[in-house]
C-alpha cells in the first residue's frame, strides 16, 4: 500500500471540505434559479419521506417505550413516577426524536443517494446529463436536499408523537398510570424552546443527510468498488456529523434561548 505524505493528506481533506461546501452552497442557490424541478422534489419526498415512515414510526415508538421503562425505576424511588410523561416528552421532543429519526433516515437515504449518484457517475450518466445540457446539481442534488429537509421535519414530529404513544403504552400497561395524567403532564411540560429546538434540529440534520449522500455519490470513483466505498462513507459521515452537530446546536440553543 502506498503511503500518503501528511501534507498531501491534509491537502486532500481541505479539498474535500471545499468541494462539499461548494456542493452545499450550490444546492441551496439552485432553489433561486430556473428550472426548479418540482416533480423531482415530490418524487424524492415520496421516496425519502413516505419510504422512511415504517422505520421512523417503529424507532420512535419503541424508543419512547424503552425510555419509560428505563426511567420508571428511578422515578419510583423518588416517588415521582407520575412525572414519566414529562420525562418522555422532553427527551423525545428535544433530543431523541430528531436525532434517532436523523440517524435512521441517514442510514436509509444517505446510502441510497450515494449509491444511486455514484452508479450514475461511474456509468457516465452524469456526464451524459451534462452533455444533454442539464445541470446535475439542479436536477439531482437540489431536489434531494429540499425533499430531505422538508420530510425530516415532519418525520421528526411524527417520531415524537409515536414516542409519546410508546411511553404511554408502558405507563398504562406496566406501570398502571392514568393515561389522561400522562398526556396532560407530557403536553404541559413543553415550552417554546423545547419545540423550537426539536424542529430546528431535523431541518439541519436533513440538510446534512442529503448533502453528504449527494457529495459522496457525485465524487465516487473506481467502479462498483468505489460506489460501495462511497455508500459506506456517506452513512458514517452523515451519522457522525448529525451527532456532532446535535451537541453544538444544543449547547448554542441553551445559551441563546437561555433555558435549562
Amino acid at each position, binding site marked *: 500500500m502506498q503511503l500518503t505524505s501528511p501534507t498531501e493528506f491534509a491537502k486532500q481533506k481541505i479539498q474535500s471540505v471545499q468541494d462539499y461546501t461548494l456542493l452545499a452552497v450550490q444546492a441551496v442557490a439552485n432553489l433561486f434559479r430556473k*428550472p426548479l424541478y418540482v416533480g423531482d422534489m415530490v418524487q424524492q419526498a415520496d421516496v425519502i419521506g413516505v419510504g422512511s415512515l415504517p422505520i421512523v414510526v417503529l424507532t420512535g415508538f419503541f424508543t419512547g417505550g424503552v425510555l419509560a421503562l428505563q426511567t420508571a425505576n428511578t422515578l419510583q424511588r423518588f416517588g415521582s413516577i407520575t412525572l414519566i410523561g414529562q420525562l418522555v416528552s422532553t427527551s423525545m421532543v428535544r433530543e431523541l426524536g430528531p436525532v434517532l429519526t436523523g440517524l435512521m433516515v441517514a442510514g436509509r437515504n444517505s446510502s441510497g443517494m450515494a449509491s444511486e449518484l455514484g*452508479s*450514475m457517475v461511474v*456509468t*457516465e*450518466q452524469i*456526464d*451524459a*446529463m*451534462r*452533455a*444533454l*445540457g*442539464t*445541470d446535475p446539481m439542479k436536477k439531482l442534488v437540489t431536489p434531494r436536499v429540499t425533499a430531505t429537509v422538508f420530510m425530516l421535519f415532519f418525520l421528526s414530529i411524527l417520531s415524537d408523537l409515536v414516542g409519546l404513544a410508546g411511553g404511554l403504552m408502558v405507563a398504562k400497561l406496566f406501570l398502571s398510570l392514568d393515561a389522561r395524567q400522562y398526556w396532560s403532564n407530557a403536553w404541559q411540560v413543553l415550552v417554546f424552546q423545547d419545540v423550537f429546538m426539536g424542529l430546528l434540529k431535523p431541518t439541519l440534520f436533513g440538510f446534512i443527510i442529503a448533502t453528504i449522500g449527494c457529495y459522496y455519490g457525485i465524487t465516487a470513483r473506481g467502479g462498483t468498488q468505489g460506489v460501495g466505498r462511497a455508500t459506506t462513507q456517506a452513512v458514517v459521515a452523515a451519522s457522525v456529523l448529525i451527532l456532532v452537530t446535535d451537541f453544538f446546536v444544543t449547547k448554542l440553543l441553551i445559551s441563546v434561548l437561555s433555558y435549562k
Partner: protein
Amino acid sequence: MSSPTLPIDEAACAEEPPANAAIVFEDVYLSFEDNHVLRGVSFRLPFGETKALFGVAGAGKSTILKLSLGLLQPDSGRITVLGNEVSSMREQDLFPMRGRLGMVFQESALFDSLTVRENVAFRLIEEHGVYDDEADRRVREALRFVQLEHTLDMFPSELSGGMRRRVAIARAIITQPELLLYDSPTGGLDPVTSNTIVDLIMKQRDVYKTSSLLVTHRLQDAFTMATHQFDKQTNQVRALPRGQYCDVPMSFLVLRDGRVIFDGDVRRLAHTRNEYIREYIS
C-alpha cells in the same frame, strides 16, 4: 455493403481554403497529474464534415470529445465550438451551448431508471417541461431512424449492446444538433450491428449534413464512411466509384502520445510515409 479498401492509386483531394469550422482546437494541452494526455493538439473540423479520430488506447481521443463538450477544461490552449470559446466558459454558460450538440458515449450512458421513450425524450422534456404529442412524434421519428420504434417502453437493461448504442444515437439526434460527437459507437459490437451503426452515422452526415467527430478503433468503419455515401432516394448506402471520394465530407486525424501526427483526407492517409501510421492502418 462492399468491403472498403484504401484508395492508394488516387491522388489526394485538392486543398480547399479553410471554411468556417464547427470545432477549432488551438495548441491544447491537458494533463492528469503526471500523465500528459494532450500535448499541443491543434485541428479544425469544418461544418458538414465528419472527422475520424484514430490512435491507440490512451492517446487522448475520448478526451478530445469531452473537451469539445466542455466536460473537461484544458490546462492551456483554446477550444472553439460552434463559435463559442468553451475553454473559457463557466459551467452554467456551457449548458445552453451543449443543447446544440449531441454526444454518443462509449458505453451508451443511457439513464437506466428511465425507459427508452424517456431517455430519447430527455432533452425535449427538459426544454418544454412535459411529454406532449409533439415530443411523442419526435421520439418515434428518432427511434424509427435507428429502427427501434418497438422498444419505446423497454428499459435499457432489456436491450442488447447494439440496441443501446442505437438508442443513444436516437437520443443524440432528436433535437437535430449542429454537431455530433461519437465515442467508439461500434466498439465491442458484432460486424452486422457495427455496419448498421456506421450506416446511421453516414445517413446523419449525408442527409442532415451534420458535422461530427468520430472516435473509433475500427479502421474499416472509417474507410467505409470515406468511400460510401448514403443515398436518400434508395434509403441505402452505396459505394462511390473511384475518383469521387473527394465528394465525401470525411477526414482523418491520428493521435500519438497526445500529439496530432496526421490530419487529412483518406487519400492523403493512404499516401502517408509516416511509418507509425502505415503500420497502424496496415
